[in-house]
């Protein structure tokens, strides 16, 4: 249909060019995140919420001593309980929102700035740019979870001390072992968070609108929560994304109960793989006509 032909005069298209790869795209996506407010908004919230939570414990600890959720009665006995409680409640909307802030924006912001046409006409293939962005969004989510967990451990220990922890089976584990379990829990928590990242990437790619993608990702996450509490839909519970946010609790049983973790892995893959695959194909095949 259309061709542009070089008529000899100077040699064209023969110079070998060393090609950048996914690592280059990933590095620069991380660099760009450093200059965006939403990055600091998300990571700041991840750090601030545990601090506010500990402050609340400080002013209420005389009235504490009970509650209707796991670990509630141990909040004032060991600071290591604080990150676990944050994980428990953060699953409702906080961590999905923090994750969506970047995952939902990372492609849509290129549309907003009209910069896709700029980067797609360099020497990186589209799949490399996609991989770099996906990895950067995932890295940010990992950073948010671990910053939140670490701040919670420090703030909780300052308030309640770095003491042994009682597991969900009733056994007591030492503080160092408890710390290890906290960080293992954070790792397991990344399984459903990774799925939220994939959903965010999908909506970011499809909607090409940052606000729509961020809100949409959060709405999907809340929808799973809603389905989980609707009467008569209990059988769906084990297969909902929201349920997988509790998989880490298997680590706090003696012996460790791996079944919720294994289920979280394949249930989350069931949601994440189609979302990521669709986002990938949409990005690979889309026309860049705007901007």
């Amino acid at each position, binding site marked *: 249909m*259309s061709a542009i*032909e070089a008529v000899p005069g*100077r040699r064209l298209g023969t110079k070998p060019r060393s090609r950048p790869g996914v690592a280059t795209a990933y590095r620069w996506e991380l660099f760009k995140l450093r200059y965006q407010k939403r990055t600091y908004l998300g990571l700041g919230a991840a750090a601030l919420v545990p601090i506010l939570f500990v402050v609340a414990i400080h002013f209420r600890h005389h009235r504490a001593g009970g509650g209707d959720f796991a670990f509630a009665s141990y909040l004032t006995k060991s600071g290591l309980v604080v990150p676990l409680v944050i994980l428990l409640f953060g699953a409702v909307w906080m961590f999905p929102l923090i994750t969506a802030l970047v995952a939902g924006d990372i492609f849509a912001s290129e549309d907003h700035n009209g910069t896709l046409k700029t980067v*797609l006409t*360099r020497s*990186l293939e589209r799949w490399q740019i996609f991989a770099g962005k996906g990895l950067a969004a995932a890295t940010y989510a990992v950073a948010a979870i671990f910053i939140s967990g670490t701040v919670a451990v420090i703030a909780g220990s300052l308030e309640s001390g770095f003491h042994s922890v009682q597991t969900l089976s009733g056994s007591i584990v030492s503080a160092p072992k408890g710390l290890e379990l906290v960080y293992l829990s954070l790792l397991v928590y990344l399984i459903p968070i990774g799925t939220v990242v994939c959903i965010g990437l999908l909506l970011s790619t499809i909607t090409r609108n940052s606000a729509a993608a961020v809100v949409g990702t959060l709405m999907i996450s809340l929808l799973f929560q809603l389905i989980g509490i609707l009467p008569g839909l209990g059988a769906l519970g084990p297969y909902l994304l929201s349920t997988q946010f509790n998989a880490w609790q298997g680590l706090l049983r003696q012996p460790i109960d791996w079944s919720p973790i294994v289920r979280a892995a394949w249930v989350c893959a069931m949601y994440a793989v189609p979302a990521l695959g669709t986002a990938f194909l949409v990005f690979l095949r889309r026309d860049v006509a705007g*901007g």
Partner: protein
Amino acid sequence: MDLTVHAGDVYGYLGPNGAGKTTCLRMMLGLIRPTAGTVRLFGRDPLQTVAALDDVAGFVEAPTFYPYLSGRRNLELLSAFDGGDASDRIDQALETVELTDRARDKIGGYSHGMRQRIGIAAALLRDPKLLLLDEPATGLDPAGMRDMRLLIRRLADDGMTVLLSSHLLAEVEELCNRVAIVRTGKIVYEGAIADLKRSAGATYRLSTTDDERAMAVCRAQPAVTDVRVVHGKISFTADEPAVAELSQALIEAGALIKSLAPQTVTLEDLFFSLTEGDGVVNGSVPAPVEVAQ
């Protein structure tokens, strides 16, 4: 549609709005897929691999950058995406577009003209043999347009091949040696501007003491064509010997010549004739497009 751009050309790519110029450039750069057919750039399909864009750089419509990064940071990012020794050319590219002093400012604060220039700097990082520029002077003030023309001229003088899509016909006429004129997705002329003007023939404007009689004399001359009245004067096309014979005939007919002046055919005249008329330029049909392969 085949475009043949010779090395060293400054090649104008012209057409009215909706003719498909920008769409064609987007396809060449692999940004959009053709609904039918294929695109080849130097024989390679840019949709298959971005390697097809080696030795090619440019921008479609306004160049775009990350507004929260400085000009230099944007160039560093793009040079990293280019690979090779592109990063070594950042300083030189900034110097070429005269933005060294503003390189550390965020692009969000750049004027339109500065963005256009940093767009060219970004293209120069790739050390391209072919530079694709889509309306580079659009939205610029007269000084900015002049600077852009000088910049393109300088790049061309340095041996770079430039494909310039533009609405500004005077700019194309000044900068380009060859043009393609496109209408509704098809090329209606491709070749040297000088050849196009030659094909249009020489046009003259005539004023006499008796224009009615002069019109009749003109029409009676077999070598004088396209006789009509334009702005109260007789306009016709003819070569120099025919004009000499016409002068003699007018005197013999008693229509004394008050003025007889050759008219310069502008690219604009030819453009409108090709894109709005029937493709006939002042009686001469441009040669069909022959594309070297």
